[in-house]
């Protein structure tokens, strides 16, 4: 399967890039310095129909293909990684419902998510359960027609600004995380829910990463997603797709850093010459460009396979996220290097891009987890028996 950009994709890219260059990029430094969630840019993206890209037309969305969704994220991330999380997490938070929710649940929530009136978030991780999802402890106890949720979550992106969360909790603690977890839709104005603190972070500082507490939070059984005990499966299926959003973000960050490095090197003169004319710098820029393009193409190949419902979808999305995240870290580090001392100061954007890039190696499954997923597929393809 080969991916070639269509005229529509190019038009979409041009549209988002214009918006990003004119309205998002100028705000990026301020958002980072003040650790400010950019509500103005959230409204702008909503107005431009960019928060409805993963929702169907019947809910007010534009239902772009996965490559189109990737391009939207990429072009925003090129200007600002924090802002790119707005469409990324809108999809992440909604995916459990997209994949396993009932039509009634979709009709109830998707119109407001597609319009951007409401924000969604995904609440799986706990303080003691990161990579080890199955060791989640939060509980959901059945009580008549309701479930009562008790526990806490940590590192939840947009947890403190979201209107609706998809939350994972144990409905059958004895069965353990893999079989006993269920998924729920929780509206954040429900009594007992709180977002008591947000983390201070290295990067994506404008994106609130929240600790969430659930103290006898009551949700109707109609808010359970899928069947009792489906939670782990739903979480994994969600991450298999959402991690492509992180790959797209990483590609965008890398591209932004590369563009900044080229712009600077073309202007800066030392030893009587433009820095960009030095072979050593050209070699660095060429490596940065080719690696970014390779990450991009792998991401698009994975996106095409998501739309084709490929049976080995996790292999592709994990590969893309792995390569793109590592590429973003390398390219942004090199971009700082190309700018020299100026790359280290906040007056230039590349130090922020480098700090922002690091998270793409950590969230939605660390690079180590991605490697395990890829390896599992390799063993399966090679007919190697599962460990006995």
């Amino acid at each position: 399967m080969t991916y070639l950009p269509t005229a529509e994709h190019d038009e979409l890219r041009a549209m988002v890039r214009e918006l990003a260059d004119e309205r998002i990029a100028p705000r990026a430094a301020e958002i980072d310095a003040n650790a400010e969630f950019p509500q103005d840019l959230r409204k702008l993206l909503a107005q431009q129909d960019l928060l409805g890209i993963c929702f169907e037309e019947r809910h007010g969305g534009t239902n772009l293909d996965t490559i189109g969704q990737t391009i939207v994220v990429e072009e925003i991330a090129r200007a600002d990684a924090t802002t790119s999380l707005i469409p990324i997490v809108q999809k992440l938070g909604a995916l459990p419902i997209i994949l396993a929710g009932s039509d009634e649940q979709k009709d109830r929530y998707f119109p407001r998510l597609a319009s951007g009136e409401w924000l969604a978030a995904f609440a799986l991780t706990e303080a003691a359960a990161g990579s080890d999802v199955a060791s989640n402890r939060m509980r959901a106890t059945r009580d008549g027609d309701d479930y009562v949720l008790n526990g806490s979550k940590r590192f939840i992106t947009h947890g403190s600004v979201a209107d609706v969360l998809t939350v994972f909790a144990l409905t059958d603690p004895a069965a353990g995380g893999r079989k006993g977890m269920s998924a729920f839709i929780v509206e954040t104005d429900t009594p007992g829910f709180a977002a008591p603190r947000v983390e201070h972070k290295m990067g994506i500082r404008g994106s609130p990463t929240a600790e969430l507490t659930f103290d006898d939070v009551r949700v109707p059984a109609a808010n359970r997603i899928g069947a009792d005990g489906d939670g782990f499966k739903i979480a994994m299926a969600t991450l298999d797709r959402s991690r492509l959003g992180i790959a797209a973000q990483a590609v965008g960050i890398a591209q932004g850093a590369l563009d900044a490095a080229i712009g600077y090197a073309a202007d800066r003169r030392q030893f009587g010459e433009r820095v960009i004319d030095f072979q050593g710098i050209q070699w660095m820029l060429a490596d940065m460009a080719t690696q970014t393009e390779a990450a991009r193409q792998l991401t698009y190949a994975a996106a095409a396979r998501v739309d084709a419902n490929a049976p080995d979808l996790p292999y592709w999305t994990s590969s893309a996220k792995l390569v793109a995240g590592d590429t973003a870290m390398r390219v942004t580090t090199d971009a700082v290097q190309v700018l020299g001392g100026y790359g280290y100061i906040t007056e230039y954007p590349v130090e922020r891009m480098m700090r922002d890039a690091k998270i793409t190696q950590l969230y939605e499954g660390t690079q180590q987890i991605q490697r395990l997923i890829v390896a599992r597929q390799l063993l399966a393809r090679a007919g190697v028996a599962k460990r006995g």
Partner: protein
Amino acid sequence: MKIVVCIKQVPATGADKRYTDDLRLDRAAAEAIINPLDEYAIEQALRLVDDGAVEAVTYLSMGPEQAAEALRRALAMGGDDAVLITDPALVGADEWATARVLAAALDKLAPDVSLMGMASDDARGSLVPGAVAAMRTLPLLSYGSELKLADGEARVRRLTAAGFDWIAAPLPVVATVTDQVGEPRYASLKGIMAAKRKPLETWSLADLGLSADELKGGALTQVTDARPPEAKGPTERIENLPAAEAATKIADWLAARKLI
């Protein structure tokens, strides 16, 4: 109420402009955009729709076939339909021929307001609106920072050195607006998708009842030469200095030439 907004597709501002052997602009060589000043006219028309003062907005452009892209981009911002006038006889047309063609098309479309930007980014003649108004024997309300419609009348607010004037005329009128109208809206994603389905008609000179002869082959003026501006000799670059030091150097340079 119906408005026709005339727009022109021009090479991107700052793009390298290249010319063909017969000194016409090589439009295929550079990225093409909607003339930036026309975007303010589009924005003004769409605001009047938002306010309920206008029901229909049509875009009109004269150009090569690729100018249809500019019309689609305008439709993506809003509006109902578009007309492209394109004809081989119009290649190399100057402002007079352009005005003749637009005037004929506007007579056919018969809007309440024929709205234009105040100048085009490439030729910058600013002659077309006045010529169109004269040819159609209609009032011209030019250089408006705002356009209002009420009681069978159009009014523009024109900024002057001392303040502003309101200039009014009975409909129908030709009007031009400036960048003081306010920021043109971005085309939303749904707007872009909807634009593909909005009607876009193509008209030739024959559809307007005009002949190539009548337009005297398209131009009353003739381009005799086109060349890039000459480099003025060695320039001094003041760069990589702290702001205060750079300012001192600039001031010294100006003072040495008795400019300050």
